[in-house]
């Protein structure tokens, strides 16, 4: 028995000593890993920075790979050491403890507990008191923490209900069964604008127009004569000669201008013809008609439309979206990255139209004089309404998908009278309508959760829909050659053969945009993601042709112009690539300030809105 006790004692001591040794080694390992944390290694980021400056440096790439491999080896070796050491230490401790327990058991030692020194007669009474104290304490803590807590959900839901009720009251004019006479009564009286320069309406356009892949048409020729004072509806060529909507004359991201610039620098002024600070913030992209360029800006105080001289940057006039019946007294809560002026304006050369996150829809003539205005009801939108406007013939079309309901609205562009309203069985979206000619008819394509839908822009009748999207849909549709392209982050990218029986021709989920819309041109499809990837697909087959990871986010949409695709990232750097199957980078000019807007083009110049300024880009 003594031998067993001796052995157990020795085992206990040896195992404990070994565990202590391992513990010391683990401490040393821990300190070393903290001092030389491979994840915090500054060498690789420095090398990567150098590589960004010279992306083709193969030697540098090899050097980075070597450093990266070393860092990884160090990290995983440390992990292995820690894990193995911990196992060994635990095993030693268990052996030591078991040996001690064995010692106790073989010696048959009965271990008595140290008794609490209590007066036995009183302990139950004391226990009762303490149970009462503890129970009361628990209840008080619960009551106080309940009183101090703030139920933001409840407040939100109450606001939602109030907002819904207010929306129903504020928006009687666009109820489907509303009578025309009543609509008239709801129209805001025309507000004369104090700051109008009438001369700006008479500037002649000299824009050269060429439709990609098509010879110059009679329409394109006549576009040379496009003027801001066109009395009738604009022709297709006139629309293409200008830049009347978000993402061009169809809303598909195709610009029909030539000789677009590829080199500029906003910081040092290289090829910057002019730049002007926009008084109020906004994420709407510019639109152009003849010599006028329009943007919106808004803050809690006011919602504004700004008209600049396209050639000089001079502010021609500004108009406020104020005194509109039904407009909310307080601006809605919107996120800073959406703001109150996210929807891009629209123009048909006879009037310009602007929409704000308050639901205020404003129509101005080309001199800034208010034609009509109305409030569409406060959009229940947790980020802020951002769907842009588009015009078909004499109808101003508004995609109004909110948390409460989805609607497609049409207004007579001249009078503001509701033409029709289509209720949509859809969830909220931030995308914009796209007008396409499928060869047999005009269709208005809308994207939302879950549908890609097509409507007759004349009547608002739904032509087809196909459920393929999910989530909070921001990107609008792309279109080319009979195929509609839609995508959303965390959903998928789909190519749809349009028609009465639409079919999903292909789908992919490798690169998905969050905000930026797809661009389809020349059989190619371009996708820009919010995590900085620019990818090109074969539009027909859906196969990826190339992808480039640039780093900064892409919120703006790619625009095709003059054989090139322009894509601006949130840092203000524009990537210009040739619209070809293989990746050919033409240039990476920088704006010098952040931007989420898409570039627009006219007369060999590009116009790009930064977060603060509007830039005119072109050789001087």
């Amino acid at each position, binding site marked *: 028995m003594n031998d067993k006790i001796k052995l157990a004692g020795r085992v206990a001591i040896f195992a404990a000593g070994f565990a*202590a040794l391992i513990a010391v080694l683990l401490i040393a390992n821990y300190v070393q890993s903290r001092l030389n944390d491979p*994840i915090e290694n500054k060498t690789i980021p420095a090398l990567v920075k150098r590589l960004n400056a010279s992306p083709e440096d193969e030697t540098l790439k090899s050097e980075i790979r070597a450093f990266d491999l070393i860092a990884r080896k160090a990290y995983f070796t440390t992990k292995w050491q820690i894990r193995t050491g911990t196992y060994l230490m635990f095993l030693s401790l268990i052996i030591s403890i078991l040996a001690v327990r064995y010692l106790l058991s073989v010696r048959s030692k009965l271990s008595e507990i140290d008794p609490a020194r209590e007066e036995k007669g009183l302990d139950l009474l004391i226990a009762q008191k303490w149970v009462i104290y503890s129970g009361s304490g628990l209840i008080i803590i619960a009551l106080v923490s309940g009183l101090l807590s703030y139920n933001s959900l409840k407040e939100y839901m109450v606001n939602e209900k109030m907002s819904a009720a207010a929306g129903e009251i504020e928006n009687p004019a666009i109820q489907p069964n509303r009578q025309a006479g009543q609509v008239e009564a709801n129209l805001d009286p025309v507000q004369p604008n104090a700051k109008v320069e009438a001369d700006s309406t008479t500037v002649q356009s000299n824009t050269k127009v060429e439709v990609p892949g098509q010879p110059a048409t009679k329409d394109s020729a006549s576009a040379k004569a496009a003027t801001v004072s066109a009395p009738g509806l604009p022709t297709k060529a006139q629309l293409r000669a200008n830049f009347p909507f978000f993402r061009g004359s169809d809303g598909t991201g195709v610009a029909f201008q030539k000789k677009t610039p590829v080199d500029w620098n906003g910081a040092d002024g290289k090829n910057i013809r002019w730049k002007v600070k926009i008084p109020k913030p906004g994420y709407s992209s510019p639109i152009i008609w003849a010599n006028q360029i329009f943007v919106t800006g808004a803050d809690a105080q006011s919602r504004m439309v700004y008209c600049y001289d396209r050639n000089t940057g001079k502010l021609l006039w500004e108009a406020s979206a104020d005194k509109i019946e039904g407009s909310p007294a307080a601006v809605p809560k919107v996120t800073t990255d959406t703001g109150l002026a996210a929807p891009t304006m629209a123009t048909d050369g006879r009037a310009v139209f602007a929409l704000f996150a308050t639901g205020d829809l404003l129509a101005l003539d080309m001199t800034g004089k208010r034609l009509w205005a109305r409030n569409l009801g406060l959009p229940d939108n947790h980020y802020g309404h951002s769907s842009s406007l588009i015009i078909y013939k004499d109808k101003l079309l508004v995609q109004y998908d909110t948390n409460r309901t989805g609607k497609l609205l049409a207004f007579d562009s001249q009078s503001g009278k509701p033409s029709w309203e289509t209720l949509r069985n859809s969830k909220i979206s931030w995308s914009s309508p796209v007008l396409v000619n499928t060869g047999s008819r005009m269709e208005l394509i809308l994207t939302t959760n879950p549908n890609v839908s097509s409507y007759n822009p004349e009547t608002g009748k739904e032509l087809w829909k196909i459920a393929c999207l999910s989530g909070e849909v921001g990107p609008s549709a792309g279109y080319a050659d009979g195929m509609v392209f839609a995508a959303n982050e*965390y959903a998928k990218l789909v190519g749809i053969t349009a028609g009465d029986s639409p079919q999903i021709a292909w789908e992919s989920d490798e690169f998905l945009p969050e905000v930026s819309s797809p661009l389809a041109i020349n059989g190619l499809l371009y996708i820009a993601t919010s995590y900085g990837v620019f990818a090109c697909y074969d539009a027909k087959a859906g196969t990826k042709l190339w992808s480039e990871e640039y780093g900064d986010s892409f919120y703006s949409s790619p625009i095709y112009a003059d054989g090139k695709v322009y894509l601006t990232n949130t840092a203000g750097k524009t990537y210009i690539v040739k619209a070809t199957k293989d990746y050919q980078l033409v240039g990476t000019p920088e704006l010098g300030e952040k931007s989420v807007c898409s570039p627009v083009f006219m007369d060999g110049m590009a116009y790009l809105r930064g977060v603060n300024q509007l830039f005119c880009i072109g050789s001087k």
Partner: protein
Amino acid sequence: MRGLGKYLYQSESIVKLLKRFGFLLMMLFVTAQSFALDAQQRFPKPEFATGYAQPATTSPSPRFLLLEYLDIFVLLAALSVVTWFVLKKRSRKGVFWTSVFSLLYFGFYREGCICSIGAIQNMVLGVVDNTYKIPLTAFVFFLLPLVFSLFFGRTFCAGVCPLGAIQDIIVIKPIELPKWLQKVLGLIPYLYLGLAVLFVATKSEFIICRYDPFVGLFRFDAPFHMMMLGILFLATGLFVARPYCRFFCPYGVLLGWMSRFSSNHMTITPAACIQCKLCANSCPFGAINEPVVETGKRHSNVNRMITYFILLPLWTGIGGLAGSMVHVPLSHYNKTVYLAEQLIEHPELKDDQKNIDIRTFLTSGKTTTQLIAEADAIRHQFYIGGWLLGGFMGFVIGTGLIRLSAFRRRDDWETDKTNCLSCARCMEFCPVKRDEDGKITINER
């Protein structure tokens, strides 16, 4: 060497023991640090194209069915063996080595899962969610120890539960806590049980599993704070025997209820108690009741108990109100509620590419308003659950007071069936022994 052994046996100084075991605490602390380092975020992806094709994501296969049945068989066998050791053999040594086996099998081999304590949550989820099918192992692991407790007392705690075993092994120098402290701390398991049920019923969290202090030790992997918690429990357990079992274990509440009615519960002595008082200081869990005679005036004692009876509905009602009040803070621990509140208060978070919860929500296709409506509904569930939880706690406090004020004459030293863990320590102290022939002898100590 001999000096060490002598010291281990004879030292009565807690301070000296603390010094001697200081290195143990140090090592455990280092372990926690090591795990914390090990558990940090995975090494980031390289910032350049490597040409390496990421392997397709695969899900681990479910555990082989036969092995699940093996777990059930081992549970049944271990329960039977330990019950046999407790009731028939009256062998502390047998109980101890059974618990070592259970620690190795259910603890280190099965890595603490499945366990009967956590199975409470499976059962509750099975009740509230008709789409959830309770796994057979979870069902058996929940039920079998309760059945054994109902007939034989808490033999599961004695030798089968790995959480109990790891604490029991390191009980070196136990001290007795004051009665009042034991009673106050004894409220915690009821609260923990109530919270666990509430969080499962609202489909928020399996808090028993998430905050299992020992599973990290079994798996050699846990967040730093959980590893520290386990170490603290073990360090405390050197002197306060099985602190988790006595003052936290929610399953212990159910086992206690069952054991209270057990007909074949272990007894300190195999025959009539000879009133030698040797067992008085044998139980490290304070689960031996002394013989009592009524103290104080009987009239005042009865009045006090009647008062407690009258106050019972008040405790329950106020408890329910307090529970309902605390539903907002409690519901923060529900991921949907938390996410909805985050999006209300910080809408810009939707652009946070690194926020997995936000990314998952965006992937789901739901709108923010839908999410908030869901969160509001869950919070309402917490409101109802808060009433029930608070009422339950009020009832537990009220009945606890009644029990403390109730006088029950006791002539012998007896086990407290509710709290006795059937560890058989007291049997070693009892000089009354029964040999294999059934003959009773009284040993001289």
